[in-house]
């Protein structure tokens, strides 16, 4: 009896072990050495790169990118970046935790809720707004001048609308991670090159031209169908410019208030045309049950040769080239319109995340200097002669390594903008000889990515080549649209307000479901109006009002 009691007592004592599993991760807010040189400047272009006298510890959090070809022995927490930042700035990067890419937001939410945040981290727009309102992020305005490089300022100036979204009452509360620039937001129409040549038809200027092309393809290749489409209806939304529609962005409505593009009358015309295409057999009969992988597979199998996609679609279509031959690549074209006149393209908000510094951090200058360092390596280190191409490649790792230091990485609308496209275009026209020096190391790294196409006739270079070096590359065509001002930018220049975010993606999904029914013929075109009314009553009105309150002209 006594023995049993002792046994039971031991078991109770073991209970804490149940709680110990799964934990064990310590995370500290900004700590350790003070930044001894706050205020100290060194001269020249790299004024911000003042090395700390004492080592400074910078806590970050990150997520895995399994496709990164790390150097042997390196990983997300220890790599060329952490070594470089130590060498040049005397900052020790300590990674508190690393999650998988899908679970990062949830894990960060947990960290925010338990108030265990690192010094600097990346968050999404909704978290950013919440953190600012709760007073948990540092005001960076006064730290900019000494710690952000001239190149970072150039990036900030290259996308002023995006930069403004990080300012609250004129104070800079974080750095947007930026996108690659507006020109990369324009969708293209991708058409199979060898089939185009065979048909002898010119580049499509109107929808009628496009239909002729699809007819010709289907006739020449029995068993194929005309146009790729899948269950998310993404292709329908990407084709918006063909119908003067502005799907998925918020635009100025006829009465001056902001309205959602997907429920405007122009969208009705788009759906009508796609319904016609389904009836005529241009689309797969079962498109509403398949996903994009199936379409890409169909392209590689020679079952379809026309598809609306992003500028970077080449990276996705590379299997087609591998399977069907170098001439069977998918080539980008500007999206044709119903009238035949040049189209107007909708452009979304070119930013998806923010880098923020913990309010309690004692090493704010170190955080900003680290951010500047990443941009410096990518864009200035070689032109300044401080690092060689080979050394920079150990950081960039053929382009993938650049994204290792996510908590301190800014994308680059400045370096990836018109200047790069013009440079690459010239190279392409000059038999791929580099005519002028590359402005940044990234241009050179991307040139190396594309080179296998023309040098070795290898498909691995296709994705980059078709994006920038092909004479009619997607980048080049998109640049013309931007130069001619044929675009409309969304009025939602920041995070969706909380009242709208509460509906998640269900409002868009309601439209996808209804549009699909119209396209396959289950509902007549007049159902569009019923659908819009349903959208409004299921949260669309609430969301529209919230967007107008936050981004309307009254400000």
């Amino acid at each position: 009896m006594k023995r049993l009691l002792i046994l039971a007592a031991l078991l109770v004592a073991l209970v804490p072990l149940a709680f110990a599993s799964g934990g064990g991760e310590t995370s500290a807010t900004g700590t350790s050495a003070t930044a001894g040189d706050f205020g100290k400047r060194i001269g020249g272009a790299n004024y911000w790169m003042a090395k700390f006298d004492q080592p400074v510890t910078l806590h970050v959090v990150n997520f895995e990118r399994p496709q990164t070809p790390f150097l042997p022995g390196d990983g997300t927490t220890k790599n060329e970046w952490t070594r470089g930042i130590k060498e040049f700035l005397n900052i020790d990067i300590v990674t508190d935790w690393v999650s998988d890419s899908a679970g990062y937001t949830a894990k960060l939410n947990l960290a925010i809720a338990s108030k265990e945040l690192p010094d600097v981290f990346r968050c999404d727009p909704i978290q950013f707004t919440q953190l600012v309102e709760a007073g948990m992020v540092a005001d960076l305005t006064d730290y900019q001048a000494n710690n952000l490089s001239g190149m970072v300022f150039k990036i900030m100036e290259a996308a002023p609308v995006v930069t403004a979204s990080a300012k609250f009452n004129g104070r800079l509360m974080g750095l947007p991670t930026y996108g690659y620039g507006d020109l990369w937001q324009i969708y293209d129409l991708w058409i199979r090159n060898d089939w185009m040549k065979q048909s002898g038809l010119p580049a499509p200027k109107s929808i009628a031209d496009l239909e002729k092309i699809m007819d010709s393809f289907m006739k020449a290749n029995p068993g194929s169908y005309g146009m790729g489409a899948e269950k998310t209806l993404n292709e329908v939304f990407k084709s918006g410019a063909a119908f003067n529609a502005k799907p998925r962005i918020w635009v100025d409505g006829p009465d001056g208030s902001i309205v959602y593009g997907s429920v405007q009358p122009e969208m009705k015309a788009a759906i009508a045309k796609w319904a016609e295409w389904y009836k005529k057999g241009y689309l797969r009969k079962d498109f509403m049950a398949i996903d994009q992988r199936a379409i890409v597979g169909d392209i590689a199998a020679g079952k379809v040769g026309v598809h609306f996609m992003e500028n970077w679609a080449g990276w996705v279509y590379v299997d087609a080239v591998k399977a069907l031959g170098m001439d069977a690549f998918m080539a980008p074209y500007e999206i044709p319109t119903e009238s035949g006149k040049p189209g107007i393209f909708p452009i979304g908000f070119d930013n998806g995340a923010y880098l923020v510094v913990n309010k309690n951090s004692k090493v704010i200058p170190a955080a900003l200097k680290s951010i500047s360092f990443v941009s410096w390596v990518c864009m200035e280190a070689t032109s300044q002669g401080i690092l060689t191409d080979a050394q920079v490649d150990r950081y960039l790792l053929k382009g993938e390594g650049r994204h290792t230091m996510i908590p301190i990485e800014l994308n680059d609308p400045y370096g990836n903008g018109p200047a790069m496209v013009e440079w690459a275009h010239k190279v392409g026209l000059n038999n791929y000889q580099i005519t002028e020096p590359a402005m940044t190391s990234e241009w050179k790294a991307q040139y190396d990515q594309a080179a296998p196409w023309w040098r070795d006739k290898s498909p691995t270079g296709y994705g980059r080549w078709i994006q920038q070096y092909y004479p009619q590359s997607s980048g080049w065509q998109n640049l013309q649209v931007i130069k001619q001002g044929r675009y409309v930018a969304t009025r939602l220049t920041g995070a969706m307000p909380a009242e709208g975010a509460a509906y998640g993606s269900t409002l868009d999904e309601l439209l996808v479901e209804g549009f699909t029914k119209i396209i396959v013929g289950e509902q007549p075109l007049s159902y569009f109006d019923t659908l819009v009314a349903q959208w409004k009553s299921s949260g669309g009105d609430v969301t529209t009002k919230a967007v107008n309150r936050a981004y309307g002209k009254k400000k």
Partner: protein
Amino acid sequence: MPSRLQKTLSREGPYYALILPAVIVVFVFHYVPLYGVVIAFQRFNVARGFSSPWVGFANFQQIFSQVQFLRTIGNTVFIAVLKIIGGILVPVTFSLLLNEIGNVLVKRFFQTLVYLPYFLSWVILAGVFIDMLSLSGIVNKAVVFAGGKPIQFLADPTLFPWVMVVTDVWKGFGFGTVVYLAAITSIDPGLYEASLVDGAGRWMQTRRITIPLLAPTVVLMTVLSLGNVLNAGFDQIYNLYSPIVYSRGDIIDTFVYRLGIVQAQYSVGAAVGLFKSAVSAVLISLSLFLADRFAGYWVF
């Protein structure tokens, strides 16, 4: 003279002590977090945590105003009830049939064979079924061969719930078969021998001995699955559905996923979760009452 309490403690004390760690763990991980239910009545903001602004029933009002949510309730109950019925009828029938097989090796072989799909995840099976049920898949090839037109199994809202039920029952009936087969083999063989003397045939034996004695197990399995009537199988539906079948195939969990999890809208997710729990509590109580009433089966 030790009191009754002391006697009880000395006899049963050690057993309570053995359960105590488990009770503490359940209490800490399942009861204490119940406080988190308050999220359903707030506009939850991770930065503010539990001090987020209170909004009363606004979250519930929001979801009940969404036409998509209301129909998910009907879809969920429809699919779940069919799955429960199928999940009983098929394993019971199959175990009765399996019981008739004399050769033990053959019996074991089939038992293992039908049990295997239970262990496969829906992510894998979804890929298999999407291929099999596509317009050019093996099932439609058979349909065309028999003279029919290809059927869009996964893109037809009327067919979709039935496809979900059939594939799910196929995947899971091996598990039920094992349970029922065990219950059948535990029936006293003396009963069968006695019935033989009375001139009972095989079918009579099944009807009058096997099925009635199997009933408590069936009732228990049903009761256990009734708590699931609002869980129509997120894994399976999520991997197989598409917008065209939302009208009959969208269930509460997939809707909440799109509403709350994708954009970390914890408040509305918690509101729906609370709603589901409340309904499930009522249904479980009802099923326990029914089990007691009609099968004399009292769980406690």
